[in-house]
């Protein structure tokens, strides 16, 4: 039985900023409206809406998906909000995919929004409540802990240095200098800048970390019939994958993200990708911290375990390298309004694969790209593979 093909036909996003004037609804409308306009569709033609948004604590609204519904174009329409922590933004695309591929809908608007600045005084404090309320929260943990603990384990296991890791921050913040929505693009940043930045939680330093941000991003997904009508450059959803590991994160080996590998294998199988290192031309892995890009390249089977720093040092992951990684500038450079940042990565693939990425365009006409996000308690992998070739 052949599956219903699903294409991305439009994308939009807001600037990512530290504090947005706009309400969460207004940000959503701006991104969603742009996505529709980009493919010449009207709200009337949208059959259903998928919302991705991370914890309610940030925007400060209980049942945030309901609140966001009108700004996301869901007035009178079927709407669902999916939620897998930091993995949400990329997952929104597979969620939209299954809406269309099920045959129930032809045009689905996918909207991801986050307004972290609404958490006052500082969004980081919201992360206390992601830990187990009885066995962990009394220790007053913060988000830096889990990143620092994972990064340390990863570096120690494979003998990776801080300098190796800092290259990623430099690459992405430089790439982001070419992104019109970026809040942290820095064309001149150096590895020493990263290594000399404030130590927050050894081994994590300030420039290893993506910033708290506000913003929204949106995609329009369509059935093959609609795609043929509205665009001559559809970008196809070739593969989707997601995987959730155990909640008992202290019982896992943090050196390797097995859940990312499982999610990637699910997506590769669907996309018919047998040799990902040859067949994936452009990668947007999740990079809220610089080491995460390395960790995820390994989990995605795009680098050997412990070897992602090497291919980074060799320039393979540079925008003009053999396998460009985070040509958008990633979360480290563009900003990290959690779910919006994830969906921004999928939008970047869309623009790159259509040759519309402007100054960020990677050379050589890429035909297939992969976006990935990660979240929960270092626990979930979400993957989408887009390509210019129509799936068989």
């Amino acid at each position: 039985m052949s599956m219903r093909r699903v294409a991305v036909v439009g994308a939009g996003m807001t600037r990512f900023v530290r504090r947005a004037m706009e309400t969460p609804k207004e940000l959503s409308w701006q991104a969603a409206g742009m996505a529709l306009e980009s493919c010449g569709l009207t709200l009337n033609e949208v059959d259903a809406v998928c919302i991705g948004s991370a914890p309610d604590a940030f925007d400060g609204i209980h049942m945030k998906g309901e609140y966001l519904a009108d700004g996301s174009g869901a007035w009178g329409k079927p709407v669902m909000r999916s939620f897998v922590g930091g993995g949400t933004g990329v997952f929104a695309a597979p969620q939209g995919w299954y809406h269309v591929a099920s045959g129930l809908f032809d045009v689905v608007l996918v909207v991801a929004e986050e307004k972290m600045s609404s958490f006052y005084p500082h969004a980081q404090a919201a992360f206390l409540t992601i830990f187990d309320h009885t066995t962990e929260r009394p220790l007053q943990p913060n988000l830096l802990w889990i990143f620092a603990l994972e990064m340390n384990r990863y570096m120690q296991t494979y003998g990776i240095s801080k300098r190796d890791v800092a290259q990623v921050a430099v690459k992405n913040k430089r790439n982001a200098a070419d992104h019109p929505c970026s809040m942290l693009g820095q064309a001149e940043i150096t590895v020493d800048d990263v290594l000399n930045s404030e130590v927050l939680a050894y081994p994590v330093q300030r420039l290893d970390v993506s910033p708290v941000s506000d913003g929204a991003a949106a995609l329009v997904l369509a059935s093959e019939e609609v795609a043929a009508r509205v665009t001559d450059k559809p970008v196809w959803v070739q593969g989707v994958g997601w995987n959730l590991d155990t909640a008992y994160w202290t019982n896992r080996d943090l050196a390797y993200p097995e859940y990312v590998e499982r999610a990637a294998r699910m997506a590769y199988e669907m996309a018919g990708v047998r040799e990902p290192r040859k067949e994936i031309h452009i990668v947007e892995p999740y990079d809220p911290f610089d080491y995460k890009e390395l960790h995820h390249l390994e989990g995605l089977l795009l680098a050997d375990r412990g070897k992602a720093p090497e291919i980074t040092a060799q320039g393979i992951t540079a925008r003009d390298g053999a396998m460009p990684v985070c040509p958008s500038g990633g979360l480290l450079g563009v900003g990290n309004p959690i779910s919006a940042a994830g969906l921004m990565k999928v939008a970047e693939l869309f623009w790159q694969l259509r040759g519309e990425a402007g100054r960020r365009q990677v050379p050589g006409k890429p035909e297939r790209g992969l976006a990935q996000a990660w979240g929960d308690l270092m626990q979930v992998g979400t993957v989408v593979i887009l390509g210019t070739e129509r799936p068989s």
Partner: protein
Amino acid sequence: MSTCVAIVGVGWTGFRPVTPEASYKELMYEAARRAYADAGVDPRKDVDTFVTVSEDFHEGTSIFDEYVPDQLGGAQRPVHTISGDGLHGLAAAAMQILTGRFRIAVVEGHSKASNILTLPSITAYALDPVVNRPLGFHPVAVAALEADAYMRRTGATREQCAAVVTKNRRNALRNPSSAYGAELRAEEVMASEVVASPLSRLEISDHADGAIAMVLADAKSALRLSRRPIWIRGIGWANDSPSLESRQWARAAYAERAAARAYRMAGMADPRREIQFAEVDDTFAFKELQHLEALGLCDSGAAGALTASGETAPGGRLPVNVSGGSLGVGDLLEAGGLARALEVVLQLRGEAGSRQLEGVSVGVAQSWRGLPTTSGAVAVFSSEAGRRES
């Protein structure tokens, strides 16, 4: 693309006002274990995808998605959360199967409402922070205003709303899983303390704890796994405006739209003739009336009289909330829609015990996400596969 989806296993805990002996994890584990045993599947091998429904502030945990996989058998498998009602989760699972990429899916919803000490304050945090929240009112006022608008438009009476309460609390006496079965008189309901006029205390569902899990399968797997698969013939969901300012106050527009979608998918031209019984949201007594009308199961404004005449009682022409509904079973937060669906499945399987309806083959379940939302879902179930074009 697969053409049909069936429910092949259901599992649930009893629904109780409090459950001090178990954490949410044990509740979920119990429901899941029972569902897998019912379906004859091993979650570690046979299930392709898992869906849970939850809201962070109901759990007291940000990114509650983190804490769901282990007790469902879903660790290192595709699992995702929908911040919605159980019927939204059911739809998400069904859509995945309809893609043809998944054969067996699991959906889970639960309530640990007894663990939430400040629910009204939390519900109020769903209101617009600039336009509404500074007024500082208890969110039950939103339901009361809606009841006032609905009753004015339709002429539904307080007596008719009280009849919903007495019926559902009585029905719950025959449901061993329910928390609030009771024989009440309509006068008692109307004489109970006014919370926000026209709503009195006994017209408002009390919360209960519990968990529900369901196993869904594509047609081929369903026929292999189950002697009595229950088919999802149609499913729809929709929102009206979330804003208090621009929503429709006198009618449940979300339920009308969701029902239209579900009926269209089911190929139902005349739901009133084809649907034999209904499980609808009755978080507030008037909601049952409003929802029956939105589902097109009676004329607009006729649900009150229909109820008062006994036609929606178990022996009537259109039995409604034979389970006891939220008023009788307990308000289960995100699991509410699954509780409605559970009763439809049990009735269609002929496993509803002393409340079993005679000769039923088609039923409908409907949910509302509760205050202050305008979000709802509708699912039509049948014990016969039927056909589904498109």
